[in-house]
């Protein structure tokens, strides 16, 4: 897997939302550090899962990659080209390959549009901007083709989103994301709003599509089981920073970062015997507010294994074994 060319490379990306104050003239008094320096790569045909609790910056990461929010610092390379420094036109041409699937299938489809209009919209936009050449009949055929691909009957194409169930709507959202033949899909919690039975259907659909079209996914979720099922590699996020990245098998077998360990222990195991004897790690306190600049480990306040050294030194990402990266002073030498 490691010999594959990185498709997407995120390098030291920071995304801060300014906090403004002032009566007449607004001035910046601080920032919400939604993402505070993260780096990772996604290779072609691979699924990178991102987990973390609410508010840790998972969704913002996806939006930063899609350039929906301008990043404050850092670079995002897609096939070697920096998305953050592109002109609008170039960005559009490149973003054809980066599409998003959203969390809430009820909110992510315009209720005033029929399925046909929704799925054909990206095509129409790119045709209008002369980045794509397609006739109206071709678009029509493509819509029907996409509907069949995601498992919807093409007879539904004149219906409105409210006439579908959540799973069907998510299929429409996936069809829309597939319309432009992207290379990578940013899936922002695509199954968390669905029933468990429907979740597996959508996950299997995504897996099948990956096999068929060689798609890469950045898959965001907070359900550990879902991530384990779909991901090749998993990144764990805490407070705008990555704490651990590893192959999913490795990570689930041997979580190294204290936060990952705590996260893993929070997920129930469907075996009463093991569940009874299992010792849960319970973190104290709440997630601190991300509006402060930190000089020590971001997890220091809640870490069960904290040391004095962690208070004043930010741990770098360290490569341990087989691409298992951890940002913690417990591993490797201090001050390295």
């Amino acid at each position, binding site marked *: 897997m490691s010999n594959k060319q990185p498709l997407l490379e995120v390098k030291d990306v920071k995304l801060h939302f300014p906090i403004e104050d002032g009566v007449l003239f607004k001035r910046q008094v601080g920032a919400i550090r939604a993402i505070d320096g993260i780096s990772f790569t996604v290779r072609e045909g691979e699924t990178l899962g991102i987990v973390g609790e609410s508010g840790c910056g998972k969704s913002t990461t996806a*939006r930063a990659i899609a350039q929906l929010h301008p990043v404050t610092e850092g670079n995002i390379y897609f096939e070697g080209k920096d998305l953050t420094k592109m002109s609008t036109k170039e960005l559009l041409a490149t973003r054809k390959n980066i599409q998003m699937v959203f969390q809430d299938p009820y909110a992510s489809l315009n209720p005033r549009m029929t399925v046909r209009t929704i799925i054909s919209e990206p095509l129409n*936009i790119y045709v209008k901007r002369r980045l794509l050449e397609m006739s109206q009949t071709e678009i029509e*055929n493509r819509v029907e*083709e996409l509907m069949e691909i995601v498992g919807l009957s093409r007879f539904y194409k004149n219906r*409105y989103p*409210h006439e579908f169930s959540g799973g069907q709507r998510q299929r429409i959202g996936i069809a829309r994301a597939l319309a432009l033949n992207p290379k990578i899909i940013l899936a922002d919690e695509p199954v968390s709003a669905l029933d468990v039975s429907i979740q597996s259907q959508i996950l299997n659909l995504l897996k099948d599509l990956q096999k068929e079209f060689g798609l890469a996914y950045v898959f965001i979720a907070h359900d550990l089981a879902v991530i384990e099922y779909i991901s090749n590699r998993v990144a764990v996020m805490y407070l705008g920073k990555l704490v651990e990245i590893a192959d999913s098998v490795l990570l689930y077998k041997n979580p190294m970062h204290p936060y990952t360990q705590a996260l893993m222990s929070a997920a129930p195991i469907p075996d009463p015997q093991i569940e009874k004897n299992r010792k849960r790690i319970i973190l104290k306190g709440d997630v601190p507010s991300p509006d402060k600049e930190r000089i020590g480990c971001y997890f220091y306040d809640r870490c069960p294994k904290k040391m004095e050294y962690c208070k004043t030194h930010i741990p770098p990402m360290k490569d341990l074994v087989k691409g298992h990266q951890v940002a913690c002073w417990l591993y490797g030498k201090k001050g390295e």
Partner: protein
Amino acid sequence: MTDTTKIEKENEQGLTNEFQQEIKGNSLTKDAWKRLKKNRMAVISIMVIALYAILSLAAPILPIHTHTKIILEHQNLRPSLTKTAGELLLEKKDLELFAFATKQAVTTTPEQKAALKKMQPNQQFDFYYDLGKEMGTVSLSASDQRIFDNLKEKVEIELLFDIKTLYYIDAAGDSKALNKLDVPKTAEALSLLTGTSAEDILNRTHKEANEQIRKELQIENENITAEELDLLLTTHLNAMRESVYNRYLKENLDGKIVNFAIDFAQQELDEVVKAGDVEFPLKTTLHMADYFTFKVEASKKHERIYIFGTDYVGRDMLARIIYGGQISIAIGFIGTITSVLIGTILGALAGYIGGKTDYLIMRVVDVLYGLPYMLMVIILMAVFGRNILNLFFALAIISWLTVARVVRGQIISLKNSEFVEAAQSMGASTWRIVFKHLVPNSLGVIIVFSTLRVPAFIMLESFLSFLGLGVSAPYASWGSLIGDAVEGMNLFPWRLLFPAMAMSLFLFAMNFLGDGLRDAFDPQSKNQL
């Protein structure tokens, strides 16, 4: 056969589902129409509004009296389906004279006096009339009887007539319409009627035309001395193009000829009436002095029937309500459309783009809100002159503010939804996001708001007309009709009632239609198919 070719083939034949039913393309508007048809009140409203539209559009060809014709004798006649104006006049006179006679003939008891004091004049008349009839002894004096008989005769013989196109037959025997003749020919034609030479007539006409232009100049330039006016007149005449000057001459000459024709027709028709044995309305062709022929349409003046009564100068209320509706509805719709267009575009852009754009637009709105809108309208009307177009303009300028605020609020509440983010991630332009995603989703509010704007505009216009700033006579609007009627409300209730009813019905229909449209444009509404 591959999948795509199969689809293409089906597309050619028209897509069918598993039950062989054809699947047609669908759009929001088509879908909305389907839903609207299910809503009974909305359909009735549409029919009512369509009726109003037909009536006001077809007003010129409807068999109604003209709304500008003033017949002073027919003031304030009550509505009647069967009785002619003449009968109503006689009835009125009879009541009046009989009541007066009774008043002089009888002495009233103190209770009756007290009761009379509280009554309106027409109720007093009724009181005396009934009293006289009850007693059976009161009779009209000889002079009163004569007045009554004179009126009766007048009602019998008085005519109203209209002269259609005049034709002039020249010496060669060719007939030509009067308005197609040039100035010297017209003068020649007039000379045949008056007996004076054509040259004299032309000279006189020149003088009169100059006088007319002088008067117009005087009105344009107030506070001007006579010498200055003379100077201005010469320069003005020199600068004037010949065709324009000729138009003055032509108008003058034509007027004279038509006056001759009217006098002639009056005499002829009087004789016809005296001879009797003619049915009115009468259509006939008259020949005047061998040179002129013209068609005349004559009807008996007092045989008109006013089913909605007449106003304070004897104009037909029905015609005035229909023509007034024309103006009121036009103001309602055009004002609404312009204000909603401006308000939606600016409000949507302010709401979506936010930041400085939003700040700028909304501060402009706030400032305009701060100004008293009546003052604004008055100033605008004063600056640009008083006509209906300026009224539209003035109303539209001040009324987009609320629309802009409402739309902005809607857009702000929608702009963070995921479907907008999805559109952004697809690379949709600001314009597309605003007008394809956000505005359609706030359409319900916009439509309801605009259907409520229509009545508001009609109200606003009527208020302006009431103040004397809106539609001016001889034109009418529902507002001005109601405004005029308020004065005689107790005595002549029909003058208030009919326009008010016409207006209320229309406003009701608009409101129901608004409700229906809101439901229809919302695919998620409860009133589904």
